[in-house]
């Protein structure tokens, strides 16, 4: 196929030659040869072709707000002209350097072209970088542009940010962050529940050695055997409840209370799992009084199904399932941490329509006899305060407390008003609303609950937790 250019030039050439022949004019014939020669020479040049790409990395994993450098190398063996390469990026990605669409000049010799750019991954989730688009153009536009797609099938996992706290063992330092009541149990009888594989330590029984795993990981004579680690009896349990109501949508699409709430849950889960706690996670909706079930079902239906592990699909009587990935039963170890990561990766607002009270009802079978620590991550405001109190009352049924001891419940309030500040005057309004918020938190504290207030624009969740550390 040819474009209109060679045809137009050929017609010009013919016009001159025919006119020259009709009038017996050699000058016109010689002039007609110029466009004719031009077309002939240009047609000898081929468009860039024989493009090939090496296989791409199957999966890339980064944290939210981390910079990611993407590089695509394409070999172009034939032709001469323009080649364009373009990667399709999710809309929530911020381009930092370079460009995901670029144009290259291909010389006659075989060339390796490289599309390189840097992006910031601003929103957690699993993204698919499915294709790399290419176009090849003739240098004189004599032939139509050729285009195609290289299937990349690359999965990009943007994980929420984890918690960066190291444990400091110092007797004079203590923390006010509550721990489960059974956290004093350091050792116990191993159960048959497999926890994880780890390196052999002095004192481990030979029976614990996993010979297959040791052989698989063998790295020479200095290699330490791998042993199976099993859960200990009397494991302390932490149950985290994450509010997925739209009241946490304060802020922008990328920076809102909900995103910070997810970050807080992840941070706390890492904190407790690293302290050998069994951790469970349940999603609830503090706006469950407003039951636009159809809308919520539609939203929940959009949740992507993923590797669930032990996560459970909760069904409400009289309704069909509300979507998978709203509940994780208490487990410990790296596997549980991975499950929590996967679940939070795809959690969106309004993922469920169960109130805190109802959510507790669904998990009560796993709470009996464990005396767990409950952590509720939400944004406290006048409309959800009553339902929060109702849920807390339900939770207190499952906590054994000694005389005059406060219930083992921590509420993390993700304050979002400062996220909405755009112009002058907004800040004052936000401060006024924060006073109201503080009043609610004070009420919660007066009930004996531990209420932590987090302003994401002013401090990190790590700072909030470190603020609970004091000296004896």
């Amino acid at each position, binding site marked *: *196929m*040819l474009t209109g*250019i060679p*045809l137009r*030039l*050929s017609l010009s050439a*013919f016009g001159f*030659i*025919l006119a020259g*022949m*009709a*009038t*017996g*004019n*050699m*000058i*016109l014939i*010689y*002039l007609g*040869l*110029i*466009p*004719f*020669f*031009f077309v002939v*020479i*240009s047609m000898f040049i081929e468009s860039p*072709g024989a493009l090939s790409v090496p296989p791409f990395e199957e999966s890339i994993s980064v944290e939210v707000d981390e910079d990611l450098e993407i590089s695509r190398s394409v070999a172009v063996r034939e032709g001469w002209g*323009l080649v*364009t390469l*373009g990667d399709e990026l999710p809309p929530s990605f911020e381009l930092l350097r370079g*460009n*995901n*669409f*670029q*144009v*290259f*000049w291909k010389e006659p010799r075989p060339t390796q072209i490289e599309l390189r750019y840097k992006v910031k991954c601003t929103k957690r989730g699993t993204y698919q970088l499915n294709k790399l688009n290419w176009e*090849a*153009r003739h*240098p*004189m*536009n004599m*032939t*139509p542009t*050729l285009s*195609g797609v290289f299937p990349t099938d690359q999965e990009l996992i943007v994980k929420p940010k984890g918690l960066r706290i190291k444990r400091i063992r110092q007797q004079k330092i203590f923390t006010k962050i509550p721990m489960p009541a059974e956290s004093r149990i350091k050792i116990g009888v191993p159960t048959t529940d497999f926890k994880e594989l780890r390196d052999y330590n002095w004192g481990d029984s030979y029976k614990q050695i996993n010979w297959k795993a040791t052989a698989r990981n063998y790295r020479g004579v200095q290699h330490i055997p791998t042993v199976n680690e099993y859960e200990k009896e009397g494991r302390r349990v932490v149950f985290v409840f994450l509010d997925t109501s739209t009241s946490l949508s304060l802020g922008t699409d990328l920076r809102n209370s909900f995103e910070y709430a997810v970050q807080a849950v992840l941070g706390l889960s890492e904190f407790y799992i690293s302290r050998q706690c069994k951790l469970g996670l349940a999603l609830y909706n503090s706006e469950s009084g407003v039951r636009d079930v159809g809308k919520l079902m539609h939203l929940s239906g959009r949740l992507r199904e993923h590797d669930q592990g032990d996560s459970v699909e909760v069904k409400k009587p009289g309704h069909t399932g509300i979507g998978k990935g709203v509940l994780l039963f208490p487990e410990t170890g790296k596997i549980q941490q991975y499950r929590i990561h996967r679940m939070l990766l795809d959690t969106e607002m309004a993922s469920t329509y169960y109130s805190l009270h109802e959510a507790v009802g669904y998990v009560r079978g796993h709470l009996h006899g464990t005396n767990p620590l409950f952590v509720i991550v939400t944004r406290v405001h006048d409309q959800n305060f009553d339902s929060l109190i109702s849920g807390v009352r339900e939770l207190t049924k499952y906590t054994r407390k000694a005389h005059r001891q406060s219930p083992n419940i921590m509420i993390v309030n993700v304050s979002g008003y400062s996220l909405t500040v755009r112009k002058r005057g907004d800040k004052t309004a936000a401060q006024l609303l924060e006073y109201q918020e503080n009043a609610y938190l004070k009420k919660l504290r007066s009930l004996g609950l531990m209420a932590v207030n987090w302003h994401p624009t002013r401090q990190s969740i790590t700072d909030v937790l470190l603020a609970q550390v004091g000296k004896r």
Partner: protein
Amino acid sequence: MNKHGSLIKVFEVLVTIGSSYLAINSFFASSLYDSVSQLINRVLAMYNIQTISTTDVTKIVPLMVSAIVFLVVIYDYAIGKPENMIDIYEINLVLISPEALSFSKLNWMNLIQKPQILEPTRGPATVFLTGVVILVGYISLLFTSRFKETSQELVERGADHVRVQEIFVKQSVLAIGLVFASALLSVMVYVSITFVCNILASSISKISYSYLVLGILAVVILSVTLFFFYNEQRTTDLSGTL
């Protein structure tokens, strides 16, 4: 814009002004213009129009025509679309036609018994080189304007402006190079045709047909070849591998 980009711009300006100047010059040097100016003089004398002397008319008319032509050419160049480049070419072609046609072996003006309207006033090489400059200018400008459109499209799609500019320069240099190569080949044909004629004359003179018959035959063969070439291109690309 980088150094090479500026050079391309300078080339475009020079070729536009140069080809337009040569075309205007060719028109005023032609016998057609001479005949037209004499006619105007006679008409003015016939109606006793005294306000403008006949000498002034022959000075003013070329100046007016030149000014109009240059204004149109500058306007078309400033707009810079491929269609406007074709306008420049068409204007220049119209202006050069009388002088080019004066070298025809078949003088159509004999039909009205006025062969002096189309008579050569300058040498054929001058006229041919004027035509070469006009065609070089036309093809170069046509392609640079198309490349500008492509560059604009790429920038709008998000490509880096600096890189697009670099590629535009490379593309334009290639196009201009090809145009000059084509012009050179044409000049070589023009120069060598005398020797080729001498060589072929002995064998061709034996053919009893008119040169027109041979010419038409050549054009028909060329047309058929081109038709098959285009057709082949189309079939190849429809079942293409890319």
